[in-house]
């Protein structure tokens, strides 16, 4: 008897918590999807000002992005910096992960933690520190300085992608190549690196995106002369309202999504 009552109460609690869980998940999904969909929707409005609901529809904003001539320079700047960062972070990260995974040198854990640390250092505080150092080194407002800062910032992601992928390549393959007459370098280049190619491509894509989307370092370290795409959007949003931003944001969203998906696919390709 008491068991039935108990059971009924349990069922009520369960139903309530189930509903609560559903509501939370639904809210979260709406919360996550709404801004992106909203911007994409507004980018197809031909209104003079950004307002909702749009009065007219069309591609005016996309045309503006490509014809106004304002977006070209910052885009090129971002692409150039992003490409350097992709290479730079790979140059630091690739030898690092090989040393971490294939040697028994002491302090490997500390080195890995150091490489991942920029992920959890409060970025504005870190930017102030870099500001002081760059002032000393005359790197403020220099493209090279931004590339350096972005490289450090991209490092955690690049190291994580490479090291989790290298973990999946069994050392037996290298040992096997070595018994067949390959020295260590040959075994690495002909087997391990060859198998790591998709992960390297993924790491470079993620490094590129990390730089391409970065806006804090450029604000603190870029001076007045250097304008990347995020910086340009940031300034436009802060000091005025250019409706073309909705179109640019949509373009960026789709490009970034495409690159990230490609990167994730490449990462999974390793077997």
């Amino acid at each position: 008897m008491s068991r039935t009552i108990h059971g009924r109460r349990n069922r009520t609690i369960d139903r309530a918590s189930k509903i609560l869980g559903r509501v939370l998940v639904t809210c979260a999904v709406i919360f996550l999807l709404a801004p992106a969909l909203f911007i994409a929707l507004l980018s197809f409005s031909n209104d003079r000002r950004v307002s909702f609901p749009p009065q007219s529809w069309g591609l005016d904003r996309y045309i503006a992005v490509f014809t106004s001539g304002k977006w070209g320079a910052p885009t090129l700047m971002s692409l150039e910096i992003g490409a350097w960062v992709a290479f730079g972070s790979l140059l630091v990260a690739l030898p690092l992960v090989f040393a971490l995974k294939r040697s028994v040198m002491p302090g490997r854990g500390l080195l890995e933690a150091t490489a991942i640390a920029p992920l959890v250092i409060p970025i504005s505080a870190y930017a102030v520190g870099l500001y002081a150092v760059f002032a000393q080194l005359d790197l403020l407002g220099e493209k090279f300085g931004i590339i350096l800062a972005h490289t450090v910032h991209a490092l955690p992601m690049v190291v994580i992608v490479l090291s989790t992928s290298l973990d999946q390549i069994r050392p037996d393959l290298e040992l096997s190549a070595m018994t067949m007459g390959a020295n260590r370098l040959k075994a690495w280049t002909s087997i391990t690196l060859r198998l790591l190619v998709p992960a390297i491509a993924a790491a470079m894509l993620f490094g590129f995106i990390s730089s391409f989307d970065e806006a804090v370092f450029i604000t603190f370290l870029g001076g007045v002369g250097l304008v990347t795409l995020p910086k340009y959007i940031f300034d436009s949003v802060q000091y005025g309202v250019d409706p073309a931003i909705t179109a640019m944001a949509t373009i960026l969203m789709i490009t970034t999504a495409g690159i990230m998906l490609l990167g994730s696919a490449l990462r999974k390709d390793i077997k």
Partner: protein
Amino acid sequence: MTVSVQPQPRSGAGAPSVTARSAALHIEKLTKSFGELEVLRSIDLDVHAGEFLTLLGPSGSGKTTLLRIIAGFESATSGSLMLGDVDLGSLPPSERKLGMVFQNYALFPHLTVEQNIAYGLKLRKCRGPKLQARVNEMLEIVGLEKHSRRKPSQLSGGQQQRVALARALAYEPEILLMDEPLGALDRSLRLQMEEEIKRVHRQIGTTVVYVTHDQEEALVLSDRVAIMNEGQFAGLDTPMSLFHRPPNGFVARFFSDSNVLEAQAGDGIVHAYGQSFPHDSPIDGDVELAIRPRSFVIGNHPESGPGLRFTGELEEQHLLGEHVQLHISVPEIGRLVARRNIGDDGRLDVGDSLKLFVPASAVHVMSV
């Protein structure tokens, strides 16, 4: 389809000339410790040219460590390791002229079967038609001609193991090392691969050092077996000798599933459990007796002649393929393991009282 059976270097292989087939592995006073833990204790071993030698032992006995030291993946703590008159100790694996087959095959997933086999040959500057000829020859030996263009992931486990074998033998290594190569295969495939490995060994004649924990594999394949226990050799001999005349209790139990009993010997007489029988063993004092499960004569009819007689109670019996394994509890000894053929007359039930007889000729005397 003519395959050279002579264990001599092929002119087409392009491998460094390996004329001295007498080259053998000589291991002396080899030890290996990981910190406090002694994994190998003063190992002495000579592997003869062309020999198939198996390192057999339970897990943790040090057999894999020994193989990895021979391969060069790990360095010994002390001792010497010579291939002919070359000191292998300071050479990297790539210069040891060895071939290795791994338990998990370790095939290069991005290369085809052909390219896997060609890998070692290419490193030896073998090119063009010579390379292709040698690759084809190896494919033929392991019967994978039809799969030459496949990737390893498209092959079955047995086929992958064949590629691994062909790949390790293609460049004619002085010694082929095999690390539990059949461990990942199911039983019927394992039996088939045993035959295959035996055939290839006969055909090519390479010296083989083979690691396994399976005594059947060791019995079938080996010229000699080194039985390892706690970092030492417990026995090193032909499978037949180890089976029939185990040097000690460990080998008797591990290799032939023998019962090991305590006894005393002196003046050609063995005394055990109040019984005695004449024996030509030269050992005196405390001894151990090894009795294989098949050596027991079971039944109520009296047996004449010298030997040991016990009476016990059948505790358990289970079917083991062709025969039935019996666990018999004997008061003065404990438990004995006996086997009888499945067709032997007389039905036995658990709880039955059994009379056991071992003729003196089936008792092997070992020093303790």
